[in-house]
């Protein structure tokens, strides 16, 4: 398999998941697409240096996390004002699952930068050992973080729901 074929296979396999991760970061579809593209440019540029010390998915998701962190550093998303935002509440959406997911992404967007990628990976059903490998933190530390993030996310989500 040449580099082009390998790249296409990797793109087909991971693009959807990476886009979800980017969406969790930005809460914006267009920006998520941009970050997805940036991620795969880095994948293309660095493919020749991949040494199979980790899985392809770990390696690609790590690039995506670094790309997202770089984006947030340059352009912080506007903070959402829960009280005064024109954001629709769950009641407006007639309890549709799709709108709940959108609300969840908006809630994730209010978390701290690193918490956003961790919870996005959890929602992607990535195993904890892989999330730890992607983020470069210990599994114990990760478990503590996830517990705290879930608690915080629930509070944010409920604060939207109460509106």
């Amino acid at each position, binding site marked *: 398999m040449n580099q*082009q074929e390998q*790249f*296409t296979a990797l*793109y087909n396999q991971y693009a959807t998941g990476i886009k979800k991760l980017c969406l969790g970061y930005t809460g914006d579809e267009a920006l998520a697409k*941009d970050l997805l*593209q*940036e991620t*795969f*440019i*880095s994948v*293309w540029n*660095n493919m020749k*240096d*991949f040494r199979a010390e980790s899985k392809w998915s770990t*390696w690609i998701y*790590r*690039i995506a*996390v*670094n*790309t997202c*962190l*770089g984006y*947030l*550093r*340059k352009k912080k998303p506007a903070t959402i004002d829960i009280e005064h935002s024109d954001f629709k509440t769950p009641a407006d959406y007639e309890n549709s699952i799709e709108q709940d997911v959108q609300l969840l992404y908006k809630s994730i967007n209010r978390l*701290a*930068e*690193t*918490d956003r990628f961790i919870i996005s990976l959890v929602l992607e059903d990535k195993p904890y050992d892989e999330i730890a490998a*992607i*983020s*470069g*933190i210990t599994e114990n*530390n990760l478990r*503590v*973080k996830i517990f*705290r993030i879930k608690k915080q996310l629930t509070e944010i989500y409920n604060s939207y729901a109460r509106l």
Partner: protein
Amino acid sequence: MLADTINKTSLNTKRKMQKQQQGGAIMLLMTAALIAALALFANLNFTKWYTYAAMALISLVCICQAAFMFNIYRKLKAINETEIPAVHLQQWEHYYEMRKKQNKWNMPLYYVLLNIAMGIYLLELFTGRPIVNVIIFLTVYAAWMLFSYFYLGKRIIAKEEKRLKIIISELKTIELQLSNP
């Protein structure tokens, strides 16, 4: 091809920063080559050796600045997106710390050396010219240089320093988020 499509539409900031440095370095090298070619082949018929020395100094300053920019390009290229986030963030932090230090001396030094060379170059050019013309030219030249250095230059440096401080502080915040449970 998928890779081509992606390359055409993306706004990769690291690559953009690399291209800026690479493009700047190439332009400076071309300037140095043009000035050197003029001095060597254009039959300028200057009678003083120091006029040619000034041209050589301008070329040398351009070459040194090009080397400096190429070094920044290499530093950017060395930032590795495949490292774990903490290491990747540290690489950017080191880069911005380096740029912050360089900004303090690079522009003033480049500016002073280039103007010394220009001053020497103009010595012969002004010989035998009407004194009023020389005074008008030097006044306009000096006024522009002083304005661009003390007003525009200082403002740019202050703005850049503020920007770098914010970036470094944000990088430290994210690093802290990663290390704290």
